[in-house]
């Protein structure tokens, strides 16, 4: 554990990608196979099952530290990370441990069926022989959420460095439904032929956002444009008469989408399609929210299938007749895809992602502005000659998103923030005018500089009307421009609308409060943009 904790500290101490890769590779090289496999598992979001609930962990930590639970909770609020809050609060350890990472993972797994008192004594015993970082790691192993700035891509690079196997092969081998309980480092990483497993998807190629216009990309004729849909990125695989659907989170979601099941027979063996799973009805996309609700349900009922049917908007063909096409140019892959979808046998659940025709970049600017009319989020630009790469790479694929929607709103409630900002008011509720009344419609907590947060905090202190716990109502005085990505009807909100990704674009100090937008403005936006 000490070595893994050291790795954790070192990774945490640098922001440089290459240093992280080197540190991780060095660790993997020296670790035994069990620790290696678990490290790879943890860094690809495969953690052991949770065997202790967090409420108990908080109680035990507060008790051990000799502080009241409320003070622990407040401290946790400030730290923002429960594992860290516990590690910071616990008293000094009484001993040391020499055990490995895998030992502690097995220790955590073994807590599962125990009585609460027994769990407590084991967890406390573990804490008492660990230093700060070991406790932090141990807590994270129990609770999950191992975010230490090491993406899967980075982990794969390190693993490649340590094993000498190339990154794409490794990315492929690591996909799918494995856990360290059911495989070994040898089987999973070193020996297994990925083609043996018919369900294995290819790593997704992810686009970067285009921050400026496309002019810098070069000659327009070298590029194609498609609409960017707001669905779930998916990979559809038919091999040996079986269908598999993978989402970008590397989750096997075949069961969630019975609509696609007939494709197992309709598509030839050895076909892999990349596309967007989109809620779609009467020739139109539905809102992303509907899809999210559908996915959240345990059972896919007939009613849901009727209410929120899905299609796959196909934009790439990765495998055809059992052959990996990823090294072929996009143009070629797309031709095959068009041919496949043009066949009479193809199901109506598969739509071709249409090209947006253009010969000059300026024409696309217009298309991007109008993206919301098509219920899309903007445009995708892809180089005709591009191969299909693994992970997020710059250069060949770009997403060019539509500008956010904006509205000027009045701040009416303020709440304390987290972490270093726990003494600042950073979470605000905003309202728009409805006649003479202010109707709250959204919260936002990001987008201002620390200086602005300090300024508004000092104002909040002086202009509080009422306090409700950590929340204060304030005099309606300040107008903020709120940016958001989408708007939809909501029966849960008094305003009747809900926003996607709202944030503060700027503090409109120039704007009198009476000139903020109205509820009617919001409802008009709803009419134009809901989708």
């Amino acid at each position, binding site marked *: 554990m000490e070595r893994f904790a050291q790795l954790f500290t070192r990774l945490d*101490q640098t922001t440089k990608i290459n240093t992280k890769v080197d540190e991780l590779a060095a660790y993997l090289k020296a670790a035994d196979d069990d620790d290696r496999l678990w490290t790879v598992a943890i860094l690809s979001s495969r953690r052991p099952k949770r065997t202790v609930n967090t409420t108990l962990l908080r109680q035990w930590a507060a008790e051990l530290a000799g*502080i*009241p639970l409320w003070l622990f909770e*407040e401290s946790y609020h400030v730290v923002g*990370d429960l594992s860290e*809050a516990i590690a910071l*609060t616990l008293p000094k350890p009484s001993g040391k441990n020499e055990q490995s990472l895998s030992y502690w993972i097995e220790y955590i797994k073994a807590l599962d069926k125990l009585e609460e008192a027994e769990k407590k004594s084991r967890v406390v015993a573990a804490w008492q022989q660990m230093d700060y970082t070991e406790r932090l790691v141990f807590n994270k192993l129990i609770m999950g959420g191992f975010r230490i700035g090491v993406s899967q891509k980075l982990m794969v690079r390190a693993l490649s460095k340590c094993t000498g196997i190339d990154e794409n092969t490794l990315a492929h081998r690591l996909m799918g439904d494995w856990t360290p309980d059911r495989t070994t480092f040898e089987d999973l990483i070193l020996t297994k032929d990925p083609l043996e497993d018919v369900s294995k998807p290819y790593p997704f190629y992810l686009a970067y956002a285009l921050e400026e216009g496309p002019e810098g990309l070069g000659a327009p004729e070298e590029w194609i444009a498609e609409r960017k849909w707001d669905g779930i990125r998916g990979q559809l695989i038919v091999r040996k008469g079986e269908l598999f659907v993978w989402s970008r989170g590397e989750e096997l979601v075949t069961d969630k989408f019975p609509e696609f099941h007939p494709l197992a027979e309709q598509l030839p063996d050895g076909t892999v399609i990349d596309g967007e799973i989109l809620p779609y009805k009467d020739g139109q996309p539905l809102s992303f929210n509907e899809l999210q609700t559908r996915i959240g349900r345990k059972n896919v009922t007939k009613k849901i299938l009727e209410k929120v049917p899905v299609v796959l908007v196909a934009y790439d063909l990765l495998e055809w007749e059992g052959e990996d096409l990823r090294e072929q140019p996009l143009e070629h892959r797309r031709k095959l895809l068009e041919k496949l979808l043009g066949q009479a046998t193809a199901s109506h659940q598969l739509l071709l992602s249409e090209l947006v025709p253009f010969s000059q970049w300026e024409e696309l600017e217009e298309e991007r502005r109008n993206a919301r009319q098509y219920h899309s989020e903007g445009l995708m630009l892809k180089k005709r000659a591009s191969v299909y790469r693994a992970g997020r790479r710059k250069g060949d694929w770009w997403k060019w998103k539509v500008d956010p929607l904006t509205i000027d709103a009045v701040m009416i409630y303020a709440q304390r923030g987290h972490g270093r900002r726990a*003494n600042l008011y950073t979470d605000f509720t905003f309202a728009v005018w409805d006649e003479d009344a202010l109707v709250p419609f959204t919260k936002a907590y990001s987008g201002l500089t620390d200086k602005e947060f300090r300024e508004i905090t000092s104002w909040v202190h002086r202009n509080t009307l009422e306090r409700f716990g950590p929340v204060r109502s304030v005099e309606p005085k300040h107008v903020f421009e709120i940016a958001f990505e989408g708007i939809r009807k909501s029966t849960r909100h008094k305003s009747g609308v809900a926003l996607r990704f709202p944030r503060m674009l700027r503090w409109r100090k120039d704007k009198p409060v009476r000139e903020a937008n109205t509820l009617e403005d919001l409802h008009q936006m709803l009419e134009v943009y809901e989708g």
Partner: protein
Amino acid sequence: MALLEFTEKGIYCAAAGVYIDPWRPVDRALITHGHADHSRWGHKHYLFTRSAAPVIRHRLGNIRHDTVEYGEVTRINGVSFSFHPAGHIVGSAQIRVEHKGEVWVASGDYKVEDDGLSEAFEPVRCHTFITESTFGLPVYRWKQQKKVFTQINEWWKQNQADGKASIIGVYALGKAQRVLAGVDSSIGPIHTHGAIENTNEVMRRQGITLPKTTRITREVKAADLEGSLVLATPSATGSNWMKRFKKASVGIASGWMALRGTRRRRSADRGFVLSDHADWTGLNEAITATGAERVVVTHGYTNLFARYLREERGLDAWEAQTEYEGESLDKDDDSED
């Protein structure tokens, strides 16, 4: 009427007609220490310790003032005032106020660990103690400074071996000199940002020994900086000023570095947990040592710390609204802490 009250202008002693660390202009101000949120512009007359004077006068220029020695009693309208070491920065003081047998202590900012540079904190018995609570939560517990300086030295040596400069973001007044006094200056040359070197010069003139430092000017070449330790103001570490360094590692020394999230948001390579404020243990010990039954909690986690003192320690504690800023990570001249 209480001996000290919190008014719109500052901490007011009505019996004497004077303010402690006022944030609005007043006639007579008693100042705990030289940080800008405690010693502000525009008062007609100032009183502070002799060792705080050079820095305060460097910042505020030509002001009307008197100085006192630690422990010396100044009587104003029958109220006795005396200054006692707060251990926060050079010259920092807690101000003891006594009137008709009642004793209050306004501590300004303080830390209990002796940093070897500031006059070491001395607990002062009182009935009412005004405490800060910048780090008044149990998650803030400092390591011994010796261990932190070992970390800084190791980091410096490693960077030196890699041909990098070690740039550390610190406040010009207080933290900069503490780091200078704490690091192993035999490792290599030390360079300073101009704002920090100005304060160093003021302190050297008052007889404080600091290791040799070189001010970074246009004449300093990139090659000179390789392998050296560089003390920079926090804002310089995010500005064009950094362009002069070919290869560098950036660290920040602050109590806030105890939290990983804070350090990540600052995107520093390294965070060193080093503060001139008392940690959770220090605050609690200091309060115990005063024997005070009443505690007024100012800047920091005021409401939480006051509630803890009330409910868990049985003290008559409450929070007071002030305009002190605590240890800030965002602004930087010498106005912090």
